[in-house]
């Protein structure tokens, strides 16, 4: 007889994976302290201590690497580790004397320690050309190129405040890039090309028409085939139609590229969460290392690090000095693309004469 099919069991209960010291002090932590970059201690009301060593990862991990992490966790952490919301790996120890040998072994294996406190943590990112259909650029390659340069800011706590960088390879934004200090965003810049012969075989026309946020897609008969047409002036290249219908080709090797956004945050500390705003509308794709993107990101970070006050996130700094000053200090050109023309666009117009001259 066949084995009974198991479904709807949900995830395993987390309790079985918690270290004993966490089970004992669950909800009874007193305070924490960052001992040095990438290492912190949490002290419980009972006096118990748990040490965390944080390592950066490329998110895309081979099972070979994960098994190696498991071996390291066995050797130093009684087999206990976790991952963070920014794709870092955290090794959890109760024996302080094992911290340095643990760090040495992780670094020897090629993974950097850091990402804590006023620094740049890992870049959350999407799949890109590694595994996504609608990517306007690669994700892992851009992230790798940027992080190679940002490493000192990952390994040190030398910035005015936390600086969160995120990357998404299209407007779908499978990473929370829209609320990041610096968001790197892949963009399409031309309306999709329709493959009329394939469209009726692959797609439902009403669904396709409904998928367009600006109503730019209309049913049309093309060479006797039931298909659609696109009002190009209305298209803002979101690619939602492509996700609904693969015959509407949004990807374009010549015109896809990258944009850069700044000043967003999600935490409520000091000022409310806010969206990232456009800094650079378009940089052409230049694999394998995207040097123009790396340079643009480094420039913004350097100007911020030199000018922001302690505790000031990117967006708070810009709000204090004003956007004209941001463009002046960074040398980034302000263009017509920076002025919003979508829904609620008027909310961002300056409706006061309070200006710095």
């Amino acid at each position: 007889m066949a084995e009974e099919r198991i479904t709807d069991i949900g995830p395993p209960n987390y309790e079985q994976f918690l270290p004993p010291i966490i089970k004992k002090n669950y909800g009874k932590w007193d305070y924490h302290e960052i001992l040095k970059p990438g290492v912190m201690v949490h002290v419980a009301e009972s006096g118990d201590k748990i040490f965390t060593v944080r390592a950066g990862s490329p998110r895309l991990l081979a099972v070979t690497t994960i098994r190696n992490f498991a071996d390291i966790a066995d050797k130093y952490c009684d087999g206990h580790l976790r991952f963070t919301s920014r794709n870092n790996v955290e090794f959890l120890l109760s024996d302080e004397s094992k911290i340095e040998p643990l760090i040495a072994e992780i670094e020897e294996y090629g993974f950097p320690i850091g990402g804590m406190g006023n620094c740049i943590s890992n870049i959350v990112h999407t799949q890109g050309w590694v595994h996504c259909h609608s990517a306007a650029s690669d994700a892992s390659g851009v992230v790798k190129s940027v992080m190679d340069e940002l490493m000192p800011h990952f390994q040190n706590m030398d910035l005015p405040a936390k600086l969160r960088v995120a990357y998404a390879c299209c407007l779908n934004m499978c990473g929370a890039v829209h609320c990041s200090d610096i968001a790197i965003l892949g963009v399409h810049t031309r309306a999709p090309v329709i493959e009329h012969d394939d469209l009726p075989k692959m797609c439902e026309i009403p669904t396709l028409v409904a998928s367009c946020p600006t109503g730019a897609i209309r049913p049309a008969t093309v060479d006797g085939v039931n298909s659609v047409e696109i009002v190009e002036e209305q298209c803002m290249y979101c690619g939602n139609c492509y996700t609904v219908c693969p015959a509407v080709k949004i990807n374009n090797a010549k015109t896809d590229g990258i944009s850069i956004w700044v000043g967003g945050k999600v935490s409520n500390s000091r000022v409310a969460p806010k969206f990232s705003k456009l800094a650079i509308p378009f940089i052409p794709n230049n694999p394998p290392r995207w040097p123009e993107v790396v340079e643009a990101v480094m420039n913004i970070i350097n100007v911020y690090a030199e000018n922001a006050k302690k505790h000031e996130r990117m967006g708070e700094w810009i709000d204090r000095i004003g956007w004209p000053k941001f463009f002046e200090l960074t040398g980034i050109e302000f263009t017509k693309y920076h002025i919003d023309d979508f829904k609620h666009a008027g909310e961002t117009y300056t409706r006061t004469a309070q200006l710095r001259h």
Partner: protein
Amino acid sequence: MTEMKYKTPLLDELEKGPWPSFVKEMKKEAHKPMVQDAIGQLERSYEEHISHWKHGGLVGVMGYGGGVIGRYSDLPEEFPEVAAFHTHRVNQPSAWFYTSDALRTLCDIWERHGSGLTNMHGSTGDIVFLGSTTEEIEPLFADLTKHGFDLGGSGSNMRTPSCCVGPARCEWACYDTLDACYNITQEFQDELHRPFFPYKYKFKFAGCPNDCVASIARSDCSVMGTWRDEIQVNQAAVLEYAKTVDIEEEICDLCPTRCVEWDGKTLEIDNANCVKCMHCINVMPKALKPGKDRGATILIGGKAPIIGGALLCSVFVPFLEMDPESDYEDLKELTEAIWDLWGEHGKMRERTGEFIQRVGLSNFLEEIGLDPVPEMVMAPRSNPYIFFDDEIFETDE
């Protein structure tokens, strides 16, 4: 090391440099023919500046509508081993805690059925297995469930909920994020696996307003820990911090409501005006702690741009008790009311936040039976275009 099937001079560049390399990761599994072809196709994308993946075609496991995302090469003749190379989302344990044995189990399962390439983790929180053939989908699922794991969400369903590290290792957790996340995930298994919503619905559980899981930006339902009594102050520890922190400049001046005062000896907080921003607590974790009367603020409707523009969540319930003993009945009741209304009237691919904007927050609240409170808005309306009901003429007895 395994001999590489294709020359990849562009990708090889990305093996250099100090940050860990995803190309090295891919090459570690190059003993699998499908990984060789995935690398070959990626090099082609680097040469041509374009993705060579296609999506579509319904793939999945029997009885589920989500969890597996169909992925195909658009160059199947050149890269036959990745003609089908599907993504699997596996529901992660709360707060991404693992034992080494659990990780090895996952690695063994994935090595048996797919590429051996993963994301730890995907943007929503799932363990992501990158790349299997269509034939392996059902055997992989059987292997996962046999070892206590299940698939996560994809498509128009409840997506895999996720949570911060919470009370497991954080003194600021105002409720048990791990338990709430696990409880809600188990309660709504049907909604997680079988898409019948207008579009996706995401839950994120953050233990405090620092929001380490970005719940306000990335979920339809943000359950954000907070408190409503006084910040706990250890004055001796404040004095200790005063040696290294300029309390006037770094704490008092940066408080959004200027409710903190410091006279060089004692820190005074006007708690009635504290908006729980966490700044002072973040700067002096040994001296300050959230209050003891803890719960969560429930915020609804956050999302990324697709389709009608990005939205942050907005306040629905200013304070909700999150006692695990309650089985989170209030949160579940609110969720079901939202799903009923949005499920019936939401347009296809319309997220809750967009739906609320279309029908109006006051109409939405009325339908789900929630009273309007001033915490829900930054300010009352400034335009006089009010749609009045007859009830405006009713007088209180």
